[in-house]
């Protein structure tokens, strides 16, 4: 198990390095001069002149060849230093550290909401296959997966903040401010997980061992809890791991709408300001978080399913 985790961590590091390299080179070999971008980002269009360009080039060490800058950047990145933000004039790693907890809080709340909604709904839907509740839940998930989350977010703001005035429009202040962002963020995952839970459960209920459990004369609740659910849930864990990726991605939009002070909003700001170090930092931290989550998910899966441990052979 330890060897497996170690191997996975090495792979994650390699992938991160490739991500960093790709991102670095695509961004630094972009049309338009980096120094120019910095000045526009920091001082505005009017400040661009020969003098300021020279100053900025000097200040950010932009006169050296790109590959040298790259090696320095990678070296620093491994130490956790991701350069200085052009826009905020603060270390990127500091900004990320300040903003990360907010994104984690929002993402985790959204994750929790969608687990609480989707798992029971999927199970009920499967147990009442082709009845009214099943049709309802299928229609509901179809709606959730088709409606743009940012539009639902705006509708919610119009209804709950502007008209009813019960929830704050934006920002992060108190318990009520997380309700709308977390709900809108959870919709995508809820839709997919409900569907998967339903089909996984239907699949398991059709298996021979469920008929065997019935022929043993077990109570229905016991058949569902001990036999059906235990087999239907593990595949869902993998699905949920992938869905966390969508939640992470969704923060970019949702944080932007609700002015939630997290990584996603930071990323959009960085893109709009052409703040290269900040963009690189955001992409890297998202990739790192996503990879780690999937590693954890895979470890949970190995823990639950004896078949994997057995065929893997590294106990």
């Amino acid at each position, binding site marked *: 198990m330890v060897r497996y985790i170690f191997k996975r961590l090495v792979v994650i590091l390699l992938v991160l390095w490739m991500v960093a390299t790709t991102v670095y080179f695509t961004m630094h070999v972009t049309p338009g001069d980096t120094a120019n971008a910095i000045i526009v980002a920091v001082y505005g269009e009017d400040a661009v002149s020969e003098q300021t360009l020279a100053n900025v080039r000097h200040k950010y060490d932009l006169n050296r060849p790109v590959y040298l800058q790259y090696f320095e950047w990678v070296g620093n990145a491994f130490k956790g230093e991701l350069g200085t933000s052009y826009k905020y004039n603060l270390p990127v790693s500091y900004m990320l550290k300040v903003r990360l907890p907010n994104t984690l809080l929002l993402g985790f709340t959204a994750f929790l909401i969608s687990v609480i909604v989707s798992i029971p709904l999927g199970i009920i839907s499967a147990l009442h296959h082709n009845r009214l509740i099943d049709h309802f839940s299928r229609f509901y998930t179809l709606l959730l997966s088709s409606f743009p989350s940012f539009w639902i977010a705006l509708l919610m703001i119009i209804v709950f903040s502007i008209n009813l005035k019960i929830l704050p429009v934006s920002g992060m202040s108190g318990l009520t401010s997380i309700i709308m962002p977390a709900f809108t963020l959870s919709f995508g995952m809820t839709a997919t997980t409900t569907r998967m839970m339903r089909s996984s459960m239907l699949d398991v209920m059709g298996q021979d061992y469920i008929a*065997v*459990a*019935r022929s043993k004369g*077990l109570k229905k609740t016991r058949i569902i809890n001990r036999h059906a659910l235990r*087999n239907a849930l593990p595949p869902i864990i993998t699905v949920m791991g992938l869905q966390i990726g969508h939640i992470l991605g969704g923060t970019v939009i949702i944080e932007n709408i609700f002015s939630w002070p997290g990584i996603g909003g930071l990323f959009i700001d960085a893109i709009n300001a052409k703040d290269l170090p900040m963009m690189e930092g955001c992409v890297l931290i998202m990739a790192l978080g996503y990879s780690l989550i999937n590693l954890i998910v895979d470890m949970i899966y190995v823990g639950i399913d004896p*078949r994997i441990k*057995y065929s893997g052979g590294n106990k």
Partner: protein
Amino acid sequence: MGVLLQIIDLNLDFMVDKKRVHILNNVSLEIYENEVLAVIGETGCGKSLTGNAILHLLPDNALVSGSIIYKGQDITKMNDEEFRLLRGKEIAAIPQSPSTSLNPLMRVGNQVAECVVDKADEKNEKGIEIIVNQIFTKLRLPRGGAFYHNYPCELSGGMCQRVLISMGIITNPNLLIVDEPTKALDWALRKEVVEILDELRKESKCSMMFITHDIAAAKCIADRIAVMYCGEVVEIGGTEEVLNNPQHPYTKGLIASMPSRGFKVMKGFMPSFQELPTGCRFSDRCEQFNEICTKSEPTMTKLTDGQAVKCFNCNSFDWGEGTKGCY
């Protein structure tokens, strides 16, 4: 010997796309106390469905009529909860296909113990574990007490089959429905499983409905044999009588097609349940086909010694050579 279970005119239909498909047609048979009735027939002839009908394990789109009398009670009229208390305790089943009939995420010992835990006869879990281990030992399963904690994926097909057998016998049922216990096993294991079942039945004095397409296995263990074709019982009688003196042309063909009897395969295939021939369901494959066969349905005709046949020609036909003699 009293009658333990009696099936009277059991009819089973499935609703497929709002159309009724008639599967089991007037199936009648009885199982006496402490006897083994083998039900033989081709795959898809309805023998497993008959077993599942007794166990209330039919899919939702099944329509059942007729009655199944167990100890004087009609179990088709019972609701699920009433029957649940019988199922597992008095009527138990040993399912087919050992590879898919065990829950892959549950230790095999617990899967067997579960059969009694729910019945609440013995509350303490250690005691149950000991009983389960005793049964495992009796069935010659290896590794002593450690076997209890294995997952199905760690076992061979033969071991899984024996775990399934343990599930059937742990409650000491009065009637054991054994569905194709030798289907997925190789020859050596087949013999062993049949021997185990035979031993058990002698020991515990339960009755068995032994569903199989393996005539050799049926001969070893059964007191009586029922032959099914296309959802009907076409012949029923004592093992010796049916195998040595088959009366129905289908039984005859079935026996002639055994490797040890010359491997003569019957012509044609079993028809689909959606396009059955009129009259006798076997008429389009029958060698003794007559005018009357397509006009009306034959009824079960009693012969000597409890043997009964569903055929118009059963008395008027000269059986010829090759069907008599020992098997």
